[in-house]
Every structure is written in C-alpha cells, then in structure tokens.
C-alpha cells in the first residue's frame, strides 16, 4: 500500500472514531425548556410528532464499547493504514495455515496410496473413488464425464493408446503433457489426388468400405512417406505418438474429409501438463483411475 493511500485510510479512521466519540461526549447534555409540552423537535408528519427523548444510557455505553473494541482491533489486526497489526495476521497466512492443516490430515492418506503401484490400486475402492473425483474436477471437461473423449480428446476407456497405456506412460502423460504433431505432407504425397488415394488405403487398413483401385495407389505413397511415423503396417508408434491407423478409432474424425484435412493441414494437438496443477500423489491416484477404465468399466462413481 502506498504511503498516500495509507495516510488517507489513517486519516479516515481517525476522523471517524474521534468524530463518533466527540458526538457522544459533546451531546451528553442539552438545554431544554421544562415548561414546553413534550420534547418536540418541531418535525411533524401526518400528525405524528417527532420527539427528542433521551437515549438509554446502556445503549450509549454499548456505543462506547464498540469504539474501544475498534481501537483494540486496530492495534492487534491490520486496518490502520499499512500497519500490519501486532498479531501479524494476514489472510495469506491463514490460508497457509489451513493448507498445512489439510496436508497434515490428508497427507498420510495420499502418501499411503502413492507408495502402492497402480496395479495394486486397481483393487482399492477408495483410491479409485478419490481418483474418480480428481478426474471429475480436472479431466472430465475435455475427456467427458464418462472419459470417452470426443473429437480431439482421446477416449481413455478403450485399449488404444497414442503414447502408451502402461501405468508409467499414463503418469507421464498426465504429469508432463503430450504434443501430437502430424506435419501436413499433402504436397509430398501428390496433392489432392494423392490425398484421396492415401485416404482410401487408410480406410482399407481398418476394414472400412473403400475404393480398392485408389487404395492400391495410395499404398505406394503410404509405404514411402507415411510409414516413417505410422510404421509399415500402420500400427503406429507410441514413441512418436503416431496413431494406430488399423483400429478404426479416429481421434480427429474418421470421415474422408477428416482424413484429407489431417494430410492437408496437419494436426497440432496438446494435452496440457498437470505437474503445476496436481500434486504427484494426486496424479498417482487419477492415473490409477484412468488405468482402471481400460481394465473394465466402473459401475458408478461417487
């Protein structure tokens, strides 16, 4: 707080407290004419007269007590300008104390689960429930509350993994994030005609209805160019994050126009890193939950 603002606040506070005290003290006596009927202030509204009867003394003493309370408060707590109070209280400090309190209470629970490998956690109902809640709060916005994803967001409940579905791979994905990067190689594979041919071949790889002649032409381009990342048999490379093109799972859309777009414009997809959002123990639990989804669908989660 700048000196100017601090002085402004100090001035206001002093003015108010001193003002209230002066008001109480200065008005403790009043001159009245005992012969005058009633103690009218002279204001009259619809025949109702406003009288000036004395305030009860106990009410006044309560007011005095609030002034004393205010003075004590301003000594102990922040409020008098930039003076931070004798007790050194701050809202940040109180927050930190609550965080420490929570860590002390919940830390052991997290630590106990963090010590167990993900395979063991598959049998721990409470660990999966906790992981499910973390998932609901952090992951379900993109991956859906049933974790089946959508266009651009992988389905976490199936057996297909772009970057590997082992416990370590899942944890790495969540912690560090992932980048999906397919370069636009349409020009290299022969422009629009090449893209159309390669599309038919790719469709044939997952057993979908396709044009056989075009697919044969497309296979030649695929073997030359695409197999570098997607492997010769099209099963993909978890090291690179290149998808398995034979599984009929289409993260970015499986219609012909979607395949064409991938080759023409490329794909840039990102899973954000969560190491600054979740603690390692929380990542461990949510990874267990995600791992459990591909091992069998949970009936209902809390």
């Amino acid at each position: 707080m700048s000196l100017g603002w601090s002085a402004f606040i100090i001035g206001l506070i002093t003015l108010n407290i001193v003002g209230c005290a002066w008001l109480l003290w200065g008005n403790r006596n009043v001159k009245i004419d005992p012969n005058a009927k009633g103690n009218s202030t002279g204001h009259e509204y619809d025949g109702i007269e406003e009288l000036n009867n004395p305030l009860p003394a106990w009410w006044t003493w309560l007011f005095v007590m609030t002034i004393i309370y205010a003075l004590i408060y301003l000594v102990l707590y922040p409020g008098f300008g930039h003076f931070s109070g004798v007790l050194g209280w701050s809202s940040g400090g109180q927050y930190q104390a609550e965080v420490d309190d929570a860590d002390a209470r919940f830390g052991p629970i997290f630590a106990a689960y963090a010590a167990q490998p993900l395979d063991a956690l598959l049998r721990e109902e409470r660990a999966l429930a906790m992981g499910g809640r973390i998932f609901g709060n952090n992951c379900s916005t993109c991956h859906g509350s049933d974790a089946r994803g959508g266009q651009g967001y992988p389905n976490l409940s199936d057996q297909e993994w772009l970057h590997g579905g082992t416990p370590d791979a899942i944890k790495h994905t969540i912690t560090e994030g992932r980048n999906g990067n397919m370069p636009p190689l349409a020009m290299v594979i022969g422009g629009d005609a090449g893209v159309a041919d390669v599309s038919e071949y790719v469709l044939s790889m997952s057993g979908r209805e396709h044009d056989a002649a075009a697919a044969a032409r497309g296979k030649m381009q695929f073997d030359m160019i695409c197999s570098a990342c997607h492997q010769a048999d099209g099963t993909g490379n978890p090291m690179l994050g290149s998808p398995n093109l034979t599984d009929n799972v289409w993260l970015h859309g499986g219609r012909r126009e979607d395949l064409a777009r991938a080759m023409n414009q490329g794909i840039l997809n990102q899973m954000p890193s969560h190491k600054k959002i979740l603690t390692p123990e929380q990542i461990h639990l949510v990874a267990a939950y995600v791992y459990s989804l591909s091992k069998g669908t949970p009936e209902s989660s809390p």
Partner: protein
Amino acid sequence: MSGTTSILTVEPGSSGPGGGPPPSEEPVTVSLYEKWRKIYPLWVSGGFQTARRIVLVILLGVFYLGPWLQWNGKPGVFFDLQHRQFTILWTTFVPEEFVLLAWLLLIAALVLFTVTVAAGRVFCGWACPQTVWSLVYFTIEKWVEGDRNARMRLDGGAWNARRIRKKALKYTLWAAVAFSISITFVGYFEPIRELLPKIARFELSGWEKFALLFPAVGSFLMSGVLREQVCFHMCPYARFQSVMFDHDSLIISYDEKRGDPRGSRRRSADPAELGLGSCIDCRKCVNVCPTGIDIRDGLQYQCIGCAACVDACEDVMSTMGYGESLVRYSSQNRDEGTPSHWLRPRLIGYASLVVVLLAAFATVVSSRIPIGLDIARDRNRLYRQSWDDSVENVYTLRVENRDAVEHTYRVDFESGMPLVYEGPRTVHVAAGKRASLPIRLVLSGDLSHQEFTEEDVVFHVQSEAKPEIEIEKTSRFHRPPTGEAR
C-alpha cells in the same frame, strides 16, 4: 453521563414514573442519556397470572424436553447443520426443501398477525421468549431478594455482607438458568446426550464453547438485567404492533367512566357521596407493572399485555366491594361506547388465511417423496459424433436417497427419438446419501440426419423395493444441425 433530572417533561401533578422537575422559567441543562431507573414490580397473583404461568410451563416444557425426544432410536428433533439435514420426528428435510421453511415462517408471521388483531399484545405478555424468560429470572429475584419493598430497601441500602450474599446467590442462580438455556439450545443442533458428557469433560471445540457461552450471556443480560429495555428499544414488534390493532382488538384498558375521579377514601364511605369514582388511587396497577407504566394514562407502546394490572385491580376492587376490576381486557370501541364486534371480517380473514395455508403446508410436507434427481449434462461438448455419424450425449444422473433406509433404484428413459441407452441401469444408494451415474444416450449413424420434432428426454428413477418412490426429470438430446457438417 449521569443526568440530574429526566428529560421527560410531565404535567405537574400527574403520576408519571419518577415524577417531573418542578416548573421553572429558566431552561435547564439535562442529560441526553437517560440513566436507567430500575423497575421493582410488585408480585401479584390472580386468574390471569395463573393462566400465564400454565402457558409458561407448557412453553418451557416443550423447549427443554425437545432435545431429549427420541424417534426410532435417533434424536427426534435434530438440526444437523454439518450434514445439512433437519430431522423433525419421522421426517428429514434437505436443503432443496428450504422453501418449506420460508413458508413456515410466513405462516408463523400470519399467526402472529391474527393473534394481534384478535387480542392485542397477547403474544408479548404470554408467549414471547423474552417475557417467559424474564418471568423466570424475576421469580428467582423475588425468591432471593424478596418482594418489591424488600428489594427497594436492599438496593437503596449499603453494600453489606447480606446484600453481597443475596446478589451473589441471585446471579449464580441466574447463570445456572442461562446455561440451562444455552445447553438446551445447542442440544437441538448437537444430540444432547452426546453434548452433556462433552461439557462434563470440557472437551469442547471453539465453536461449541462460543455456542454455549453466547446465548447464556445473551439470556442473562436480556432477560435478567435489561428486561423491559428489550421491549422498549430492541424489539421491532413493539413498534409495529400498533398498526395491526383496530378499534375492536382486545386491549388492556382502564375504565375511566367507572374509575374517575380518583381519590382515596375510607372503605365504609360511599364514593358517590364524595363525588369519587371507583379508583382509590392505590397505584397497585402501577406497582405491579413490569414495564413501569401507568395503564390509567391509556394504552401505551410499552404495555406488553401481561395482565398483571388486571389481577392487581381485581384484588383491590373485590376488597373494596366495588365489583369488577377497573383495568380489564376491552376494546377501543367498547370503551368509547360505539358498537363493538370482535368477530369481524378482518379477524375472520386472517384466521381463514392461516387455516388454509397451514392445511396446504401440511399437505405438501406429508406428500413429499423421499428421492432427489439431478441431471447434469456434459456441457463442454454438447454431443459426441463418431466417424459413422452416430451421435452420443453424456449425462451424469445424481440420485439422492432421502429415505431412512437404503434403496436400489432403476433408471429408465423416454424419448421421441430412437435412442439407445448405454450405461448401468441400476444404482444402489445408502440412506441419506447420493450417487452419481454416468450414462450415455446414442443415436445411431443412419438415423442421425433424420428430423425429429421432440428433442426432450425424460429420465425416470424408481425404487425397486418401494415403487411409489419415483421421480422424473426432463433433459434434452443435442446433435449437430441436420444436414450440416460438424
């Protein structure tokens, strides 16, 4: 801030409280802060006071016994703030039903208005917690320190051992009453059978200590020390009750026609010969008044309708042989001689409204079905479309079991579209708990370009054990606009 005289100017010769300053020509300096003059009500007994004490015992009985009630082995009246469930005997209320509390308060207010229109400030004098508790504290005060004269002598005298002893005993008893109130009060929010051992072992959390201390201090101050000051200066009802009176409301008033002119006389004398009315100016009605007013001056806002003056004058009048009490329940019309009808349209209107609302409230409360359903659609993406053009919508059904026993519920749905349900069909929920059920509705690819008029989906959840416990909620099925690419 002590004043020399009261700022209240009174007519010379009238019997105002404390009397006024002698008439003078010069303006006087008086204190703007009126020092509180303690009121020493005289103890009185009679028909109305007996009736009041019976009402007091009933009200206090309900308050004190409430937390001890048991229903099915659990506390009968339990306002569980921690779990946000209010249990009253056989039924439990959840926050979603908060509107019922609002209606209850509305009905309570209407009951208050009805009673006021009918019988004036009878709530103040007979049922208000401040009055009821003040009477308890006053009874203790009278028992320890004696009746009016003894108390005035004690307070007017020196601070000797006897005075200290009496005050100490009185305040100790008051503190005991105050803590009995706060413990009972907290007993409504924390089962009293668990609370008492905790107090005995002094194992109380910070909030519990505050909750036990604050009402006790409040009660001690308000009912013990401040008494009528609460009615004068703190209570809003005192100020607006006058707008609910009309000329037929029952009020306590002094029969001026019979009583005036006032004056003392021998018992054997004939008042008519002396040119006097029935009032012997004994001031007993003033001395018994807990708010320190003179009811003979007319109805005042300070009068709480406790009918102490009625019983007091009844006593005196029967002793003098003059007939009925000069101070009695009457109405303005009756006093003025104009035709008075107590049972009038306003009263009947208020009372009917109360009856109707109460009946409606009772019906709504008794026909509540102990189940809750919320449908949370996935909103970040309205729908999920697959390579074969099939469209999925994801829903999370939150089922709340508001019954006292566990239930297994079955989920069904109805829709104008040929949707396929994917997900668990049953969910088991413990009593008082909630469960989340993630499900999907799928529209197959070959149908997804069709036009459908109804896009609503109705989910139906029903208990398998008790089919009468069921609930329906409507949601929607979203899909890309027909004919458009995604």
